[in-house]
């Protein structure tokens, strides 16, 4: 139990970092209604670009920016494969993801791991987030505001604000309309292909940022660090939705819910680990959690359809609406 509690700050920090990735998944999966598997590759791309550039002497911010741009390019490739080449979105994402595995290795100089040498205090101090700051911020070796929870929470709030503003613009509204009803969007003169590509670009930019932060936090990037990222992202999106849907309606609240969902996911994971489960079962556990959370809303919907209550008449059921559309 003590082990679990002492591991909490680390779990929350990691959850917050993954939360940024989950917001990226939210944009494709929820707003655009596309399951984008690029993220398993672009997450590592972000980490690889960051670590290589940072250890090569770039500043933390420029290296982060480069990581984001690399992720956006990955999203662009998936978007073009889907819209220009007519490849189904899910397959387009898988193709990019596979291609990225080679590209990520190339970025990392054909090594499976690249590390930041955090034993040099000078290098460590330049980092934005690090596993070491979790302890150092408490012992006083670092100022309290350098605690990863504070740094990443502020960053997440900033990102959510920017995204919320964006989704309120004409282009942002067009993107939401594309995900909500692409027929309607085209009839209203929206270039749905552009919206889809833009959404994938933004999403993978966020995913790469998250990957760069995690690589920083762990002071290393490893070629497999993004494997299963989509599952963690989906878990966060779904947990956020299931737990907070009753109280969070506005879009910025929903994105906050997703970030909180990622934290919950990591706390649950930590709790399971504290029971002494072999860490190798974590991926199995993640898959089971996501499958369960995806099943519950489906069954719930099926149940309410079988027994419609007056207050929850299905959309279009009144006035002869065509509900099987």
């Amino acid at each position, binding site marked *: 139990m003590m082990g679990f509690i002492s591991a909490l700050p680390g779990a929350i920090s990691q959850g917050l970092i993954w939360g940024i990735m989950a917001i990226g998944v939210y944009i494709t999966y929820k707003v655009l209604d596309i399951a984008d598997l690029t993220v398993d590759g672009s997450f590592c791309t972000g980490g690889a670009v960051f670590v290589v550039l940072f250890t090569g002497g770039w500043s933390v911010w420029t290296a982060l920016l480069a990581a984001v741009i690399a992720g956006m390019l990955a999203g662009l490739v998936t978007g073009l494969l889907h819209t220009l080449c007519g490849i189904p979105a899910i397959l387009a994402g898988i193709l990019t993801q596979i291609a990225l595995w080679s590209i990520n290795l190339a970025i990392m100089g054909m090594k499976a791991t690249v590390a930041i040498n955090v034993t040099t205090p000078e290098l460590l101090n330049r980092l934005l987030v690090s596993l070491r700051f979790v302890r150092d911020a408490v012992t006083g070796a670092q100022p309290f505001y350098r605690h990863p929870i504070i740094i990443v929470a502020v960053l997440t709030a900033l990102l959510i604000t920017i995204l919320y503003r964006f989704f309120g613009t004409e282009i942002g509204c067009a993107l939401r309309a594309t995900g909500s009803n692409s027929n309607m969007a085209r*009839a209203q003169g929206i270039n749905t292909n552009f919206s889809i590509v833009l959404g994938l670009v933004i999403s993978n930019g966020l995913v790469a940022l998250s990957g760069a932060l995690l690589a920083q936090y762990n002071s290393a990037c490893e070629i497999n660090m993004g494997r299963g990222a989509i599952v963690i992202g989906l878990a966060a999106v779904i947990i956020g939705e299931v737990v907070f849907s009753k109280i969070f309606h506005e879009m910025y609240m929903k994105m906050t819910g997703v970030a909180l969902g990622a934290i919950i996911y990591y706390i649950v994971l930590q709790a399971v680990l504290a029971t002494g489960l072999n860490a190798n079962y974590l991926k199995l556990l993640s898959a089971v959690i996501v499958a369960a959370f995806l099943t519950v809303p489906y069954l719930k919907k099926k149940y309410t359809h079988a027994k419609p209550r007056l207050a929850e008449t299905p959309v279009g059921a009144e*006035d*002869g609406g065509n509900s099987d559309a």
Partner: protein
Amino acid sequence: MLEVKNLYKTFNPGTINEKAALRGVSLTLEEGEFVTMIGGNGAGKSTLLNAVAGVWPVDSGTITIDGVDVTAMSEHKRAAYIGRVFQDPMLGTAATMLLEENLALSIRRGNHRTFRRGITPAERDQYRERLKILDLGLENRLTARVGILSGGQRQALTLLMATLKKPKLLLLDEHTAALDPKTAAKVLEATDRIVAKDNLTTLMITHNMRDAIVHGTRLIMMYEGRIVVDVSGEEKKKLTVEQLLALFNQASGSDEADDKLLLS
């Protein structure tokens, strides 16, 4: 306003499901003309509308709207000229977005979309005013999610969205067919009001022969991918359902004026 010349479209060519849906359709709509279109299932009515809207490319022929050849123009670019209402009430609106957001999307049809705000406070007053023409009380529900509205309300909203920014051409694809009779009548009334107010050039498909006679200034009938009847003016005003059936039989060379066509 609309000029369709010798339009051909075959679906699934070379397969067992090959279907020649349009076989040389030519049609000219003058500005302000309100044309109703009838025909049995598979006659090519919806195909013609979708061809004009640019849902897919046609095999041959040209489509010109207000002097602009749009034949090769993509669907979303063509939307600058066209307002559309679909048969399915779910298709015309974004269910997960607010009523006012849907309207804001539609008033920007044909505009270049930018990073300016997707909806401004001044617009809301305008929408409240414009929603009154539907006579459904929607003017008080600007911030409702469209998904909670009824099929009839959504269809009326789609109609307003199609016309909020005056289109050069309004395409109505059996837009009342999925509604109950009372709601359908209400949406049709609103259609007449809106079309008359803005003098819109309109092409409306209907399954209901009586509606086809009562509404609009001109009536056309399609049969097997061609236009077989075209009446307007006084002649159309005096039409009866019986005469229309006789016309159909004459044009199709058979007496299979079937239940499908009679549906009303």
